[in-house]
């Protein structure tokens, strides 16, 4: 295909559409001897790598088409489709000659352009009115749509950003302490856990947790804790009269339970001497009674 033939096609298409032929002139690459040069000289050798870089700079067929339209100052709403199709095909051919891996999208666009070009050649039904859409409409929409996000990307790139334009002001904080927040536990969480665990356990049947038992068990812990500190304690000192009768009873039951479980034992140095409570005798840490000097504090 020759240059002149293609141009004629373009004019024809425009005429068929009832529109004036495109007025835009291709922007010259250069001015040589006062004459604008609009095409690269065919015989000029371009290093393939340079061309490759040039062609690879495009983000796809839409980007390439936009480049062609903008470079020639064409009106995006009135694209001379024959011209653009020819130029596009030249680029595609070039890419193929250079063995550039050509994404399928480029070929798809070539087909779309060819189709639009052929539809432009068909006479338009004038009385069809608004129903008759310009064959280029979809392409124009896509080009504009792509262009606005291409522009938006450039705008984003120009925003002042961290690392490049903006540095947070930082001052060292020495003596920083590590503060660990302990997890919160709601009482019912623990109760749910307890319920589940006892339900799983076979011993569930003979486990009777009741108010009394609980206070006794708490007191058992208290008594043991007391003994842990001193090893031996006078029996009556375990009771606190100010707790009243119930408190005294709880303590007493607790001691009995501890005795039953052999966790404590009651000892008496001599008959009629005060009773003492100490940890179970088999505890190797516990000293024999006669080696302990019994001290009573006032």
């Amino acid at each position, binding site marked *: 295909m020759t240059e002149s033939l293609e141009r004629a096609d373009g004019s024809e298409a425009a005429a068929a559409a009832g529109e004036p032929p495109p007025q835009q002139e291709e922007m010259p690459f250069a001015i040589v001897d006062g004459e604008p040069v609009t095409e690269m000289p065919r015989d000029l050798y371009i290093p393939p790598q340079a061309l490759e870089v040039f062609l690879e700079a495009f983000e796809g067929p839409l980007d390439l088409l936009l480049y062609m339209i903008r470079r020639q100052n064409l009106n995006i709403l009135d694209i001379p489709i024959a011209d653009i199709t020819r130029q596009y095909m030249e680029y595609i051919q070039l890419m193929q000659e250079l063995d550039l891996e050509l*994404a399928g999208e480029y070929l798809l666009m070539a087909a779309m352009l060819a189709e639009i070009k052929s539809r432009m050649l068909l006479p338009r039904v004038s009385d069809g009115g608004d129903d008759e859409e310009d064959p280029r409409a979809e392409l124009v929409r896509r080009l504009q749509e792509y262009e*606005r*996000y291409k522009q938006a990307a450039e705008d*984003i790139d*120009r925003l002042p950003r961290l690392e490049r334009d903006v540095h*947070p*002001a930082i001052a060292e904080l020495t003596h920083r302490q590590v503060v660990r927040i302990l997890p919160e536990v709601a009482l019912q969480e623990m109760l749910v856990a307890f319920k589940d665990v006892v339900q799983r356990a076979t011993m569930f049947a003979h486990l009777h947790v009741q108010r009394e038992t609980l206070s006794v068990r708490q007191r058992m812990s208290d008594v043991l804790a007391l003994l842990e500190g001193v090893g031996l304690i006078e029996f009556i000192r375990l009771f606190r009269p100010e707790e009243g009768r119930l408190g005294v009873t709880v303590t007493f039951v607790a001691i009995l339970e501890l005795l039953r479980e052999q966790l404590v034992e009651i000892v008496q140095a001599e008959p009629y001497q005060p009773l003492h409570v100490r940890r179970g005798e088999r505890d190797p840490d516990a000293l024999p009674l006669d080696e302990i000097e019994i001290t009573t504090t006032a």
Partner: protein
Amino acid sequence: METAQLKGIIEAALLAYGQPLGIEQLREIFEEFERPDAAAVRKALAALAEDCASRPMELVEVASGWRLQVRSHFAARLSKLWQERPTRYSRALLETLALIAYRQPITRGEIEDVRGVTVNPNIVRTLTERGWIRVVGHREVPGHPELLGTTREFLDYFGLKSLDEMPSLAALRDMDDIGIQLDFDGPATVQAARAGLPAANDADAAS
């Protein structure tokens, strides 16, 4: 607590933390009995911003809160402090990011429709690793493609308080407007575009 004292503590916090702190985070620094209310914190922030006028740093509000930052006119000079040059982002990455930012939530397929090329998975991974985008849901169509959206970190990074502050999007022009639209970058276009962030989405959705 007096504003002056409050201001000092807030400045110390922002400098020590080096990242934006919200009003609530700033209030949390204080023990309950002395905790200032949000209005008091705002007042102290205003006083701090004023103090900064004569200093090489400024107080700015971004999506996650308030940040003290070195004034940007120092950036070029200070770049010598770091051996590495700041990362340059490719056009493909920025265009993908722009589509996610302006059209979120959006699927990869929808990004591909606009850009006319497939989305490189590395770009989505890089954007995710930077913490700028995240999966915000799935489109209820076959294959349940992921819907992508931007994060607060994205806004923080670009110094924005909200998506409203993104540069406005150019308006689409209709082929029927061919006669009247001459001034492409004129004020009319800008105005249309400003209204355009949501409007543009509607148009997109309809098309």
